């Protein structure tokens, strides 16, 4: 039993990682006042770019760079429409999601002629699992050994990076000048503007950070977790991340907990497919799959706590008022 739980949690960490990176991406952009329903598209595009580049250059690092660059590019399109030209943030986000879904397959098919997939990646083209120091030595220590060497050790670098991003994001938001301004611009952009700070540039920077994080998430998906890109491999993760962002009320640590919860549900759902449980019988996997969405709706409805986003989120900034 203990073993099973450890393994489930182990899978949870792997599955939560892209959610976490994405949710933090969403956190930066939404705290700056830009709704980010484009996370899904950014993830997908970055995953494709990372896998394609890793394959072409035989370097997972170049792949990740390409993923980040793609995430940033998507963010810049997002910003160009919704910051510079004050377009609707939801509409531009939807456009980016569609663009990513179409373009990845179109280009993938053209380049690799494999129905939109990239070739399978191996060796240097992928992030390999890292064994933490002492993991092998501690393996047989009861409880702690399993926790350390089975659960914490043996993930790819990006998993650790994603979790390290949580305190870092918190620190940036709460302890730095940039963070203060970022939070302010999402609450009351007029206050930022009258303080002589450019609302536009601040929001662009937030979106660029979001692009970088979404890019890493994409790289993780196609070169860390999986070994190559398959069409639509984002499979709604962008929206689950959005749900986790709301669930965590736009704060890094609760957002992480949200991602872990949703990741856990996913890991659980995978393992429960077609399995008869004692007492309850076979739980429809769909019922577990929808839990993140249902929980988020309940939260939004104020039935479990209350989620109130940054005040200025979703509104293009116009000077006069």
């Amino acid at each position, binding site marked *: 039993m203990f073993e099973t739980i450890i393994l489930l949690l182990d899978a949870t960490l792997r599955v939560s990682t892209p959610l976490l990176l994405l949710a933090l991406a969403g956190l930066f952009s939404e705290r700056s006042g830009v709704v980010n329903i484009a996370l899904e598209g950014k993830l997908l595009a970055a995953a494709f770019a990372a896998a394609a580049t890793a394959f072409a250059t035989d370097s997972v690092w170049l792949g990740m760079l390409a993923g980040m660059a793609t995430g940033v590019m998507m963010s810049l399109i997002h910003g160009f429409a919704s910051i510079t030209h004050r377009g609707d943030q939801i509409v531009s986000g939807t456009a980016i999601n*569609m663009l990513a879904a179409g373009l990845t397959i179109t280009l993938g098919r053209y380049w690799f002629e494999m129905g939109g997939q990239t070739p399978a990646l191996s060796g240097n083209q992928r992030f390999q699992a890292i064994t933490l120091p002492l993991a092998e030595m501690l393996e047989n220590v009861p409880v702690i050994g399993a926790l350390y060497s089975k659960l914490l050790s043996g993930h790819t670098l990006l998993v650790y990076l994603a979790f390290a991003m949580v305190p870092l994001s918190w620190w940036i938001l709460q302890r730095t000048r940039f963070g203060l301004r970022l939070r302010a611009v999402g609450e009351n952009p007029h206050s930022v503007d009258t303080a002589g700070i450019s609302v536009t540039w601040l929001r662009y920077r937030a979106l660029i950070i979001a692009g970088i994080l979404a890019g890493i998430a994409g790289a993780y998906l196609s070169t860390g977790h999986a070994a190559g890109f398959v069409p639509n491999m984002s499979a709604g993760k962008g929206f689950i991340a959005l749900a986790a962002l709301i669930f965590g009320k736009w704060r890094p640590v609760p957002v992480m907990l949200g991602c872990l919860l949703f990741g856990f549900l996913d890991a659980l759902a995978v393992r429960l497919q077609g399995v008869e449980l004692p007492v309850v019988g076979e739980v429809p996997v769909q019922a577990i799959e*929808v839990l993140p969405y249902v929980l988020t709706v309940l939260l939004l409805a104020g039935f479990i706590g209350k989620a109130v986003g940054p005040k200025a989120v979703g509104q293009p900034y116009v000077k006069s008022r």
Partner: protein
Amino acid sequence: MNNNKLPAWINVLLLPLLNLLMAFAVSALVFIAVDVNPVEAASLMIQGALGYQEGVGYTLYYATNFIFTGLAVAVAFSAGLFNIGGEGQAYIGGLGTGLMCLALDASMPFWVIFPVSMLGGMLFGALWALIPAYLQAYRGSHVVITTIMFNFIASSLMVYLMVNVLKPDGEMSAVSRLIGENARLPMMDEILGWFGIAFDPSPLNFSFFIALAALVMVWLLLWHTRWGYAIRALGANPTAASYGGINPKRLTVIVMLISGGLAGLLGMNEVAGYSHQLRLDFVAGYGFTGIAVALIGRGHPIGILFASLLFGVLFQGGNELSFEYPNVDREMVEVVQALVVLFSGALSLMLVKPVEKIYLAITAAKADKLKAQEA
């Protein structure tokens, strides 16, 4: 989007057309990038979509879907609500239509099943919009987020129902049984046949007329009834609307129900009209295309009709293209669609200022000339 300094024809026709042109220009670059000659592709698409009867049939069949989902988005939008859940509402609406057909086809004649399945579709679609609507109106959660969530919930629910409930024993794909002949809508070739007009068979069916009727009804509703007045007032100025005795909460719910009901009509075309069975994913993104359609059509039924035709051409032409070019697939059309949403929706304000400048410069030059002539 409207600019007071520009005459209506620029606002309503020229600017949307320019936005569309930009989207097409960028799309052409993508075509070139994958070694497809965009001019050739365009002509092939138009030929495939409009060049022969069956192609026209397919184009209008797709357009039927877009009219439903486009209207759904537009009606909600005129009340200031961004219903991004057309996808889920259409899915559940189609379920409603399908269930009615499956339940009644053994015992009832067409003239009973037809209205019941149509109402069933609208009702199910409306119900799927009800919870997000209620939460927006009474609990302050944002309809954009909740409808996104409800799209996913719909999709999981449908998988469950299709796999565990509706799939006949021994069937491997997750599809329901076929509905009886008496539950199917007449195909267009049959209908035209009654009038002695020959038309090649295509998926185009009676739903097209339902869609046209929906366009007229929505137009009447929004611009020629007191309820439409209330809806538009709510969208344009909620404070003034509530001052004017309009209950914003109740109206929000009602508008979302109408919107969901319109999306739910998609089932008439897909289930009762074309595939004659419930299948997984029959909505196939039409709900999202509805956003693009409503944006280009500027929320007006006439605009939506033209935008739906445009997307019908893109979809059918795109299929044709994927048949001819190994490099091209339906995703190519999705790219075009994305660019249209980007330029016509998110970047719709980009060209206003430049166009205004040019227009004012031209009128000023004209005025100068007139003055010079007078002098």
